[in-house]
């Protein structure tokens, strides 16, 4: 079973290929869209590459949920994610670090949850890796 460091290295290499960015640009906290310029097709490409790289199956919408709240007003009200919405987020994306987002749960910032570290944590969870 690969270590966390090995997983991070492989995830970084995958992102270099998929997003056409330099290795140096990839930090654990880099956001895929904001920092690394990912577009919607890139998210699919990343999923396909991770599946092959790690020999795992990634169900659609598990790693990058596209419409996690589906317009439900209980989850999102006036552009802010509600308490119930945040609970849903924690359940659906236990691998994401939502601490910063919780302090200002503005929907426009939700893509900031998608970081390099988030992918690495997701893979760790899938493979059951230990440090």
């Amino acid at each position, binding site marked *: 079973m690969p270590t966390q460091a090995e997983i991070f290295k492989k995830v970084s290499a995958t992102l270099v290929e998929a997003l056409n960015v330099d290795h140096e640009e990839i930090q654990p906290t880099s956001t895929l869209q904001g920092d690394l310029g990912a*577009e919607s097709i890139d998210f699919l490409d990343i999923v396909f590459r991770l599946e092959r790289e790690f020999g795992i199956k990634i169900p659609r919408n598990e790693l990058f949920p596209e419409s996690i709240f589906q317009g439900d007003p209980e989850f999102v009200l006036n552009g802010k994610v509600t308490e119930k919405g945040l609970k849903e987020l924690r359940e659906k994306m236990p691998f994401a670090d939502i601490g910063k987002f919780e302090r200002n749960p503005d929907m426009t910032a939700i893509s900031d949850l998608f970081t390099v570290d988030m992918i690495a944590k997701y893979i760790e969870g899938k493979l059951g890796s230990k440090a």
Partner: protein
Amino acid sequence: MRLKDQVAIVTGGSRGIGRGIVKAFAAEGAKVAFIYKGNQAAADSLVAEVAQAGGIAKAFQCDVTNFDDAEKVVEAIEKDLGLVNILLNNAGVIRDGLFVGMKLEEWNTVIQTNLGGVFNFCHAVAMKLARQRKGRIINISSVAADNSNPGQTNYAASKGAVNSFTRALAVELAGRGVTVNAIAPGFIETDMTENVRNKAGDLIKKMIPMKRLGQAEDIAKVAVFLASADSGYITGQIIKVDGGLSLGAVAM
């Protein structure tokens, strides 16, 4: 040579417009893999004709309506010729007849070939092109998408859908440097238009401001342009190549 060492797939390549495109691509230096459904003799003669002219064309048998087969044949082509750079979807059929008498099978055959074939091959190739961050997809549509003729509800619907598909896919792939365009031919002198030409005779030429039917080469020249680096800033466009037919002028 504008397509030197580019690997191109042309569906419906053994006859008509597709055949003209295969020859033109090969003449511009592309390594062309063309798809044919059943006419082995036509496919063989095209391979020989291109080789004679000093080009490279290889024939691959595949029914474009089959999703899995499309994927398999693209894999086989890449194994043989290398990474695909250009996809030209030309395979198309007509099953003309007034709508009230149209059989479900006639509807399905046209939609599954003309639209389904475009879906199947684009699906097999799109991510490959996106990963290379460059590529060309060219769909052969028809002026019949916008200019309605009686007896072509199925054909017009399929080509109208190809136009919409072309624009929508162009938006998705633009960020990855892949362009997606369509060519909408008017009346081209091929087997497909033979019946109409026989029935309508000189009337067709009167409808065309340029007073002549198009040739496969007229379409092939535009296809070469769209496949080449020269068209790099054009995407999501439907280019009519019809001698002015779609302008709707009344003959004087």
